């Protein structure tokens, strides 16, 4: 009888924990196959930050953990089996909703969190010790690129004409780690935002309708 009581109590505790913790925009390494942060012929990517919008059912939840999908090219994915250095440092911001513009508003952290990662396709960031409380039902998780020499990589922009003798077209551009994934969810609007060099937020729709969200998931409690 005592065992039964113990097991039922255990189940009810698990059930409470499961109810409280909610994963928003859940990602998996095999589901993230498209990445941003590259200079392309049809896109000049010069944004300072990229933020994902999250909505919860109840206000006042606490942010527990954030996961981020980033590009790690397999060693044999290169021409000369290159093991390209993938270690990177970036800044993590949590923002409240700007109710006037619908864009990220006030920061919910005293200062941005510096995150270091070596080679994980899914970067897990534990935020429990920071006790970040979401005042409303909407919040944003943002990644800020640190444009230093450690993160700097080179991009080759070719225009299809490199095989013409004497007309080899090649343009080099700087790009910065980490290259963040994007996913497609079953909706018609984008919830990805980017900050322009003028520090203005704008909705990121360049990859619509193919990609709707950044590969950033958030686990919240108190739902």
């Amino acid at each position, binding site marked *: 009888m005592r065992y039964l009581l113990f097991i039922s109590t255990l189940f009810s505790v698990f059930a409470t924990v499961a109810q409280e913790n909610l994963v928003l925009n859940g990602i998996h390494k095999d589901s993230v196959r*498209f990445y941003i942060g590259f200079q*392309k012929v049809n896109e000049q990517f010069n944004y300072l930050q990229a933020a994902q919008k999250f909505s919860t059912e109840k206000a006042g939840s606490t942010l527990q953990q954030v996961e981020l999908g980033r590009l790690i*090219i397999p060693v044999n*994915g290169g021409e000369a089996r290159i093991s390209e250095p993938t270690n990177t440092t970036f800044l993590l911001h949590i923002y409240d909703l700007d109710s006037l513009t619908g864009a990220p508003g006030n920061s919910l952290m005293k200062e941005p969190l510096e995150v270091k990662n070596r080679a994980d396709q899914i970067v897990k960031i534990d935020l429990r010790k920071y006790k970040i409380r979401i005042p409303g039902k909407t919040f944003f998780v943002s990644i800020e690129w640190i444009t230093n020499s450690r993160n700097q990589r080179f991009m080759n922009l070719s225009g*299809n004409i490199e095989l013409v003798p004497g007309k080899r077209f090649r343009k080099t551009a700087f790009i910065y780690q980490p290259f963040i994934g994007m996913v497609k969810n079953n909706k018609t609007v984008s919830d990805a935002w980017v900050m322009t060099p003028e520090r203005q937020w704008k909705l990121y729709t360049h*990859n619509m309708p193919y990609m709707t969200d950044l590969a950033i998931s958030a686990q919240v409690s108190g739902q």
Partner: protein
Amino acid sequence: MKALILLILSFTNAYAQKTIKGTVINERTKEAVPFATVTFLNAKNGANADVNGVFTLKRTDNGAIDTLLFAAIGYTPLKLTVGEVIRSPEVFLQEDVKTLKEVNISDKRKELTIGSYNIGNHLYFRNNGGQLAKRFEMPATHQYLKEIWINRNLTYFPFRTETRFRIKIYKENPKTKGPGESICLDTIEVHDLNNREIKVDVTKHNISITSNPFFIGVETIPIPYNERYYIFRAGNGGARESTAYYEIFYQPFVSIGRPKDNEGWSLPLTPGSKWIKLDIVPAIKIVVN
């Protein structure tokens, strides 16, 4: 004697009234239409014309007020009253252009494959987007495009293979001798998961090639679905100390070979770019009808 002649004449007249004879003729070429079907619409009976388009029908009792339907494959059906046919025994049928095309395309005996892949060793196209085109000549005996075959490289790199792309068909630009005006205005979109050889049946687009030479283009769509990432080292034969570059490629990676004359052309993704002659040719072949 007079009575006998009168009797014969009356029999002949009676026979003439009981049969309807005429010829089915192509209105445009004025040639006979062989084996047309002629049917009494009310009586539901009829006959076929012979190889010279000549038909002979027996009239029923109330045949004078019946209607005849003339039908032949490749022609628009025509309805005429019996009276009209008796007055004018030459029946002109109009060609049905749409039906004619379908008939030609389904005629397997006339199919012909043009071009070969001619793929070199480990050659593939490092596809940065844009279009790749190959020049073809339509034989004088053929007119319609039936199938387009494209060969692509799947094994050289561990990239995912699924792709969506478009096929374009162009006339020759007389100035550049490269691709010019578009022939087919339909969007021919292809979705392929993992085939090395992609067969595209274009029968439903009824593509008639009337000018030679013409070009088949593979248009890469620079969308996330096709995007793949790649790193290479430039200079010093890929030595470790040389700089690593990221590059974006787009599926499909079409196989390439060495061209004859001006066979291979490319239209870069860069806005405002023009067709450029290549020293490679994409692995495309076609089946015509």
